[in-house]
């Protein structure tokens, strides 16, 4: 146990010295400051506007688009779900767009998860956690110390999990700080709605849950955390397979983007739902964004990610502990 802590300390030191975490925090800060500023602009403009009319106009526009049949099948689903949610907010007299600090913090895991920002940051942290040792030749020393290889890999995985967790936490804190500069800070207990479901062409409202915003946020963060842990585990395998850091980061990004493209280009090929990338935006699915394929329930996505994570970690350990280390 003590030995494992020493190994984790080593990995932490290396990760920090490589400045990976600094890069991650800088990216988060830059993006969140910009988004926070844009929210401030919306807030400033909203004083002059009637949000109800705005929302009604948007719904009308979206329905028009659907009628013209311009949208692809998966996009149409998204639009229908969105119309349903807007209608729901109209009916309940809630302005969904009104920016404040709690909403900003609440939205972060959804947006950063579904737009692949958080997976990208995990890639930066983890893609070269093993391959860099290989590329820099330090594996020859690391693996000739009196420590079994599985312990070294486990220390790397735990360190990666730790920093992925820290990334999400720092994301929340930075979102809070960035929003606090520009937006009103009250609203943690206002109702927040999630669980919208799309059935056929209409949005089912019977599954919608009403929770105080802070609890709703905790659930969203929890789901996004789970998805990041799974993604970090998958990233470890690529880092083990590839000798060069560029190859492993490249493959990770390609699979993220490729998975997204796949769901948009060929939504009819339903085998795509078994690809881990489609299950990553858990927080979004929790809120009510329809998953790209039928039959992707929350339970399905959580199980799928677990299967991928366990499978890839098992392969990573098998490869890492058995392979010959050549120059």
């Amino acid at each position: 146990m003590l030995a494992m802590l020493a190994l984790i300390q080593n990995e932490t030191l290396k990760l920090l010295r490589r400045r990976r975490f600094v890069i991650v925090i800088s990216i988060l800060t830059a993006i969140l400051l910009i988004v926070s500023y844009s929210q401030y602009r919306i807030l400033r403009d909203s004083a002059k506007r009637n949000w109800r009319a705005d929302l009604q106009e948007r719904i009308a526009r979206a329905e028009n688009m659907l009628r013209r049949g311009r949208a692809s099948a998966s996009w149409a689903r998204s639009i229908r779900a969105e119309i349903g949610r807007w209608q729901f907010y109209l009916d309940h007299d809630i302005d969904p767009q009104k920016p404040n600090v709690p909403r900003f913090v609440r939205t972060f895991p959804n947006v950063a998860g579904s737009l692949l920002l958080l997976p990208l940051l995990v890639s930066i942290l983890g893609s070269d956690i093993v391959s860099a040792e290989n590329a820099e030749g330090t594996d020859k020393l690391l693996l000739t110390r009196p420590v079994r290889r599985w312990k070294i890999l486990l220390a790397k995985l735990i360190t990666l999990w730790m920093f992925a967790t820290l990334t999400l936490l720092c994301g929340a804190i930075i979102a809070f700080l960035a929003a606090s500069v520009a937006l009103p800070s009250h609203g943690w207990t206002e109702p927040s709605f999630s669980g919208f479901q799309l059935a056929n062409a209409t949005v089912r409202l019977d599954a919608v849950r009403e929770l105080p915003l802070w609890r709703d946020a905790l659930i969203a963060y929890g789901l996004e955390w789970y998805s990041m842990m799974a993604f970090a585990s998958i990233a470890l395998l690529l880092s083990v397979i590839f000798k060069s850091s560029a190859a492993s980061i490249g493959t990770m990004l390609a699979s993220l983007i490729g998975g997204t493209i796949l769901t948009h280009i060929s939504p009819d090929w339903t085998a795509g739902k078994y690809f881990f990338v489609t299950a990553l935006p858990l927080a979004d699915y929790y809120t009510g964004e329809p998953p790209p394929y039928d039959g992707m329930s929350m339970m399905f996505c959580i199980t799928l990610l677990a299967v991928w994570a366990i499978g890839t970690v098992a392969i990573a350990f098998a490869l890492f502990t058995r392979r010959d280390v050549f120059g």
Partner: protein
Amino acid sequence: MYNPRSLSTLTPTLIAQHLTKVIGDRTIVDDVSFEVFAGEVFGFLGPNGAGKTTTIRMLVGLIRPTAGRILICGHDVQHQFEQAMRCVGCIVETPDLYRFMTGRENLAHFARMLGAGDDDIARVASLVNLSGRLDQRVGTYSLGMRQRLGIAQAMLGEPRVLILDEPANGLDPAGIREIRELLRELARTRGMSVFVSSHLLAEIELTCDRVAIIHRGRLLRTGTVRDLISSRRSLELRVGDVPRAAGILADHQPTIEGDCLLLPLDESAAPPLIAALTEAGIDVYRVAPHRQTLEEMFIEATGGETVD
């Protein structure tokens, strides 16, 4: 001073038994066996691609042997990896350390893996004269300094066996001499087993007690440096009339080299030859035992391939 005859009374600390590595249909290392004893410096020589590095990587558990086994201080590297590696410090190929960390952070990193403390870090750093530069990033080090930091790292935890690949690489003559003396010192006074590979034959000759020569994956010869060289002793005669002298000494199979004759004989055979030559009226200017260098022996053994 080291005495080769005392070997039999010592137990070997590093034993390689019938090491074989096959990749695909290529046999890279073929039935290599040797023993390294406490208190000796053991040299490992071979041309490029001879299987030198593969053998070293098998010794330290980086590559799994296809057949054969390795015992370090009595522990099988395959099955008792942790116990075996606790007895070994090594540099494999190049002394690659974490360039983005300081020398001290690097040593601390590897010390933590051994459970060694700060005093051990200070000890190994002073051993290789690196104490003053320990807080600078390794990226700023010269190759010689990195080599020394590599050796310092290998000395952490006071291992009984030191395995060093090309320890003289990148060092200037003074540095090479320093390392040579350090290695001899470690073997002699601390009774460590030092296994070094090198392509600098003269260096091996000066540093090592025993040598193994590997070529195309097979061990050609193993023995003390003295035995390997003296088994090939010859007599060099500088004479006035080389062709006539060669004729007179034809029975001894002389080879002509410039104005000298080389005879595969010991110096005890010299007096009658000199008498025979003077009797025939041939001037003899010089008679000297020709000491074959390790390099000549090596080139002969490997069929003239360059050492690297």
